């Protein structure tokens, strides 16, 4: 058979790009969800606290694969047909948003009560206090846990191939059908994930140093 190296390589690169897109978009959405949920969980309004708690306890405790299958194959039966990539990003964001919320909430404990009292005495409202005083400190404090959430989003994105999105793992499977390279290709894909995760960890350390200087 003629050489298919070019096609194989571009398949893998496309798969990697898909994995990275899923991860970055999923993580960004998870951060937004996490911030909103954290704001709810510390809010003085009881129903909001309940919503925040319900969200976290629900999505923190559902295996990602279950959620993916429910979204991809369950929702169409009630008339909601999401495109596959949107479905994967939603699932990644929902689950990792719950973890991001808890990471941010733990960071909030590092905000001195005096700082909040000072903000309130200056006339800042609840939203402004959160935005200007609490979140900047809390995010810095929760940087390392958030790196963990990023890595969990990255690794979770590899389940995309189970619901028909061709990420790096999916691309490897397609190539294996023809080339029969077997686990060697899987080992290479694992190496790529490790490299990205290490990169994310290193970036987290750099950011932490930079922020602690200011």
């Amino acid at each position, binding site marked *: *058979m003629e050489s298919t190296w070019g096609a194989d390589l571009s398949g893998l690169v496309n798969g990697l790009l898909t994995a990275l897109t899923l991860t970055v978009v999923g993580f960004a959405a998870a951060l937004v969800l996490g911030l909103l949920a954290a704001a709810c969980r510390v809010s003085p309004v009881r129903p909001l606290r309940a919503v925040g*708690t*319900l969200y976290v*306890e*629900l999505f923190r*405790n*559902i*295996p990602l*694969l*279950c*959620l993916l*299958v*429910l979204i991809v*194959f369950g929702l*169409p*039966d009630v008339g909601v*047909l999401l495109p*596959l990539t949107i479905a994967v990003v939603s699932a990644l964001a929902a689950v990792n948003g719950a973890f991001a919320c808890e990471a941010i909430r733990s960071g909030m404990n590092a905000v001195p009560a005096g700082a909040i009292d000072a903000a309130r005495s200056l006339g800042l409202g609840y939203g402004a206090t959160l935005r200007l005083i609490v979140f900047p400190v809390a995010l810095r404090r929760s940087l390392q846990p958030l790196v963990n959430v990023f890595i969990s989003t990255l690794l979770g994105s590899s389940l995309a*191939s*189970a*619901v*028909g999105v*061709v990420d790096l793992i*999916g691309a*490897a*499977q*397609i190539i*294996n*059908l*023809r*080339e*029969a390279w*077997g*686990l060697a*290709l*899987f080992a290479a894909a694992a190496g790529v994930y490790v490299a990205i995760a290490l990169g994310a960890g290193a970036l987290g350390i750099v950011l932490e140093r930079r922020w602690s200087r200011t």
Partner: protein
Amino acid sequence: MTSSRTLALAILLTSAALITGCASPSVPGGSGNPGSGSTGYDDIVASAPVASAAEIEANPWARAVRDAGVLRVGGTDLARLWSLKDPTTGKLEGFDAGLSQMLSRYILGEVHTELTPVSVDTRETLLQNHAVDAVFATYSITPKREAKVDFAGPYYQSGASILVRSDTTNIRDVADLAGKTVVTQSNSTGVTALREHAPDAHVVTFPDNVQCVSALTQRRVDAYVIDESILLSNAVSTPGLKVVGTPFTSDPYGIGLPKESGAKAFVNQWLSRIIADGSWARLWKATIGTVVEGSAPTPPVPVPAG
């Protein structure tokens, strides 16, 4: 809090029940007690030939299986018509499953198999590791795979066909798939068939047949391509679907065996024997023949080609 936990738990358990099918790492299966069923399937397996002690003794691979007392099979329990686990009995039924059960009977004198689920990524490795004795998994014979494992057979000539919704009028044959969204099973030859015959189709893959059918009925995709027998079975079991055109590929399925283990000659000899005595055709009739009209096709001749 407590109530939200309970809700989460309920959803979790439901999802887990849905999921276990495609995520279970290793399940034993197919250890049968022949003749207990009423389908005729068990009787067909139970009437398959048994090798003489001398024949087993003469072959190192068969001897090892006999000494272990079990045939370790690489396969699946999710493939309708080929190897599907009956949830009430826990036994595997299908054309691939039946052949593996017949082979275990041939060597052991009784049906005793142990299933290791395999995927396209693990089949060669499991054979090279000697973690399984044989792979029965709609396993297409290709030169690249033959470099790593031996194939007995072919024992079946597969042909990919097209399944669409009954209201579809613009897909009649493989040429019409260009520009359409087409689903097939991740581990199947459908992926390569589509790449060769319908390169302009947008291909989506799901791990098993049920998910592919859902994608079609939920209008996520326009067509489903895989071995015609599976599509015919879907068209029978799911209203609102139809098979169009005739098969556009010819794919020889073989039994994967460890390389240079002596297994290939032994298994080919067994294949010739079950073809000659009609066991092959009876098994076809009881499995694939339940959805494909007409009598059993002429089986491909097992070739001892290297």
